[in-house]
């Protein structure tokens, strides 16, 4: 496993743990795949995304601009991993 790949794996585990702890616990029936949309599955609502964006900004020191708060960047675990890797 290359170094970047390993960092990616750790980041993915970290983000998944956060999403599970902050949102998924309310939805015990939902099985969330890394590519599944949070909104589509109804596990994160509009206020949840506010929390999620704040967490990503704080935890990884990323300044997120309004136009970046989109499904492509924040809509799933895959999206979060890609966004954080690109921006931190």
């Amino acid at each position, binding site marked *: 496993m290359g170094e970047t790949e390993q960092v990616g794996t750790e980041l993915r585990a970290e983000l998944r743990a956060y999403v599970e702890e902050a949102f998924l*616990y*309310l*939805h*015990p029936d939902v099985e969330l795949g890394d590519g599944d949309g949070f*909104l589509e599955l*109804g596990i*994160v*609502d*509009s*206020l*949840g*995304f*506010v929390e999620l*964006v704040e967490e990503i900004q704080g935890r990884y020191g990323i300044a997120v*601009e*309004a*136009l*970046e*708060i*989109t*499904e492509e*960047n*924040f*809509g799933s675990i895959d999206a979060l991993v890609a966004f954080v890797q690109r921006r931190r």
Partner: protein
Amino acid sequence: MTTLDADLRRAAAADPAKEALVAGARRMSFAELDAAASALGARLHALGVGRGERVAVLAPNGAEAAVAIYGTLRAGAAFVPLNPTIKADKLAYVLRDCDAAAVVVDARLAPLAEAARADAPRRPVLVSPDDTRTGRLRAGSAPLSVDLAAIVYTSGSTGRPKGVTLTHANMAFAAGAIVEYLEMDAEDRILCVVPLSFDYGLYQLLMCVRVGATLVLERGFAFPGRVLELLREERVSGLPAVPTIFQVLTAALGERAPDLPHLRFLTNTAAALAPPTIDALRAAFPRARLYSMYGLTECKRVSWLAPEQLDARPESVGIPIPGTEAWVADEHGEPLPAGEVGELLVRGAHVMQGYWNDPDATAQRLRPGRWPWERVLATGDLFRADEEGYLYFVGRRDDIIKSRGEKVAPREVEAVLHAAEGVRMAAVLGVPDPLLGEAIVAYVVPQEGAALTPAALRRHCAAHLEDYMVPARVELREALPTTPNGKVDRRALAREAGETPAAR
């Protein structure tokens, strides 16, 4: 003709190719919406559902929901819009209460509707909004203006949702009055991020169809970036929202608002905007006029403040909507002098017909009016008026919580908590919150030996309540303050809550 169905027919005849709906990748002209409504109406007729029946509509914001609403109306039936995050037991309750003949439901929510249907004695039939098997509308099925158009369920202080009954005349009148003060016409393009199950969202659709304007429907306000993109790309002219949304939007924007030359108005309702949010909105959208409004489902909208009055009266919700009256009344219903606080009463063609199957609740809200046939709406809200008649919201007479712009009855949430294993006592309060308006906070006393956690209790709530009703916080207590007769002392609890720092 003053029916919602006639509005769609008129819009489709006037400009068939005009864009009626934009929902994700789907675009529908008025002719297409009209044809889809006829197809669904014919399908309902084929299933034996027609004039006088109730049809529940269960779909997230999208073309399907709009087709479901107008297809139901075309069949001559009344629609019952439901929040897509509703859970099976409450859905079953609503289906029983309104004696629904059918549920128009999108594919994703069909399993939920299937589960709930089993508990409704009438076993309403499930219909897909995309079911366009050809059929024919029965002749003579068009609704009259005096027919029931919709039952909109709202959280009731008893803990049971109450169905607000509205005729075509009620809804067409209210839509027309709002269109008038917003100066809407066919050129407008409105972005709707609030759910169509909430009357604020629903009326965006009714108003656009009424004037032949375009409605851009978005599933929700989750991604400010997406909303900004839509505002720009869809050349949106009007954005209706509630304070929570405006706050998130302006906070996300910071100093860097994109230029949106088409955005001509913003509307706010459900709660007052904080002055810093007003400033931020004006800075971000300098071309947009900002309307403050007040209303309740029982008459849709009561009042509006002209944008040019906002600086002079930033806290006012304005004057009655065109063609209606509203006044601050004493206990006999007589107007009080300026400055005095009393209940706000409303008269006009927008006032509901009552609560479905609930004469006691209806009698509390609808009082005898000026004419033998007229009934006046008692809002249950305390107001005062200034010398020029501008209205100011003072407070509520009941303990309904307003969170994110939606009404939540503490008793509905408490009933769910009481049903959880290990709960001895539960009380639910609205605690002031800068973002939510009020945050729903539950105080729970566990039974002896019960291993309860706040997370498990929130999960229990999430399994039984719509998303917006789930407590933001659950606090475990050893006891709750009680009144001498053993009830929870809500005032004492609220005082305690006010002293605890609001941790989110």
